[in-house]
């Protein structure tokens, strides 16, 4: 580490910070871009189709991977239409409002085990432990993402968009609560809310075992949170066209679309950190930096795939069904989970 930073004429701290920024910013972006491909090819395979496989670079099809680049180029080259009656400022702002919270979410999540080199301790999360925000940060930032949707909907000046945005915000309210309660149960048992401490507390036994109920609730809420099927009410081909995205095209659309996928990556990372031991490797006490990063990546990718997998398995819910589920099923369930753990802690003294 020291030699590397000396080669670049940087202090180890600065060098490590740059590396972390690159990882935390480019990592989710790359995975999100790949996910668009995984989503399309994976769904094709699930449905016995073939999926996009025609885009090619110099005649090499590379199992359809150039499609990502092709889509990006297409989005950039398309005409950028803004509806005449739209609120122009907000219309331009909305994709950013959707994108920025999505990328910020990864900032505190540790993507590997901290390691020591040359007398320094290097932490594998953009913000070092003890920053005082801990796990509250991704939660809060994740909830901010709904502003992107809402602003997009409002500024488009379109009935479908408004309906979509309204649904998204109602949905957000109805499952944010159960999600937070599920997470609070974890904070309670771990006695901390810093992700490093949470992972420390999961030594030997991942949270998914004692908090299985909480995991189910959290996982379900994550689908609603990331606006994905079976809870993608902000859009709805058959009812409100593309919902809040109806008026969006070209790169603005692509940005919102991409931020949804980044959101999905962050959601997977959250699930892994909270319930699946973060960077921990089963039966290995100290996996070390490389193995721990690999483990974290593998788990995150697995959950990304589960998001895709569930999307192509479960049909859409109706809007009222989701509201009912949010308030009448998920909230009581996470309350039970919370009270159960509170009771256990009380008994243990």
């Amino acid at each position, binding site marked *: 580490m020291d030699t590397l930073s000396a080669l670049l004429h940087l202090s180890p701290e600065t060098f490590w910070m740059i590396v972390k920024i690159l990882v935390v910013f480019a990592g989710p972006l790359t995975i999100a871009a790949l996910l668009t491909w995984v989503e399309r090819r994976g769904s094709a395979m699930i449905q016995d*189709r073939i999926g996009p496989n025609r885009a090619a670079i110099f005649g090499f099809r590379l199992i359809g991977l150039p499609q990502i680049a092709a889509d990006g180029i297409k989005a950039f080259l398309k005409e950028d239409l803004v509806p005449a009656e739209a609120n122009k400022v907000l219309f331009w702002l909305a994709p950013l409002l959707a994108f920025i919270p999505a990328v910020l979410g990864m900032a505190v999540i540790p993507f590997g085990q901290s390691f020591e080199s040359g007398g320094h301790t290097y932490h594998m999360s953009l913000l070092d432990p003890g920053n005082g925000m801990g796990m509250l940060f991704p939660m809060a930032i994740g909830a901010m993402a709904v502003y992107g949707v809402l602003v997009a909907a409002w500024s488009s000046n379109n009935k479908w968009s408004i309906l979509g945005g309204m649904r998204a915000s109602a949905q957000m309210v109805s499952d944010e609560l159960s999600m937070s309660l599920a997470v609070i149960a974890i904070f309670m048992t771990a006695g901390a809310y810093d992700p490093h401490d949470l992972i420390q507390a999961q030594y030997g036994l991942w949270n998914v075992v004692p908090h299985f109920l909480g995991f189910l609730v959290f996982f379900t809420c994550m689908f609603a949170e990331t606006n994905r099927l079976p809870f993608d009410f902000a859009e709805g081909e058959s009812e409100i066209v593309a919902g809040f995205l109806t008026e969006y095209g070209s790169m603005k659309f692509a940005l919102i679309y991409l931020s949804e996928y980044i959101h999905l990556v962050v959601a997977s990372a959250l699930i892994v950190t909270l319930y699946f031991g973060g960077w921990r490797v089963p039966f290995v006490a100290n996996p070390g930096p490389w193995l721990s990063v690999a483990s974290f990546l593998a788990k995150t990718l697995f959950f990304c795939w589960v998001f895709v997998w569930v999307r192509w*398995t*479960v049909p859409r819910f109706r809007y009222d069904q989701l509201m009912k589920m949010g308030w009448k099923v998920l909230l009581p369930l996470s309350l039970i989970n919370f009270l159960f753990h509170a009771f256990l802690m009380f008994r243990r003294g």
Partner: protein
Amino acid sequence: MAVIVKQVKLSWLDRTYFWPVFKGMVITFGHFLRNLFTSTPKRYTVQYPDMKRVMPEGYRGLHELKRHADGSIKCVACFMCAEACPARCITIRAEEFSDLNLTQGFEEKRPRVFKIDMLRCIYCGYCEEACPKDAIWLRKDYELSAYDRLSMQYGKWDLMNTYAEEDGKARITTDPKPAVCSQKASL
């Protein structure tokens, strides 16, 4: 009309919702794995321009006007096909082409013009059914397209050559000179 909606009684396991979702995920993953380990040509989708579907026997595609071994057209311009055609897309002009009669080895009538408007044809195969001479066949070529409407009017020589490459026959553009033909003499 009233429809009685069948109410399905769900077991408590089904009503947890998670279990049926899990079962569904197993099914979809099964499909995923099956497709993952099936090479592209073996999947359900036919990758059209690269792969062509082999049409089943009895498929009714582009027509062919059959010819005798010497290259003369089998059709005797009897107008049966034109009569049978529900789309009215066959146009035939007959001509006399020989003073010799059937017993001497010749049909005395043949189409001068035999035109099928492929845009109107519905590929019903009635022409094939009606033909007393087995002179018109609907075969397996389904790749009919053109840049303008006129190209879709198949004339006599187009129709006689539609499957020439496939059968390894020579393309012909003129009627052969009438001569005593052995396979007819035996009639």
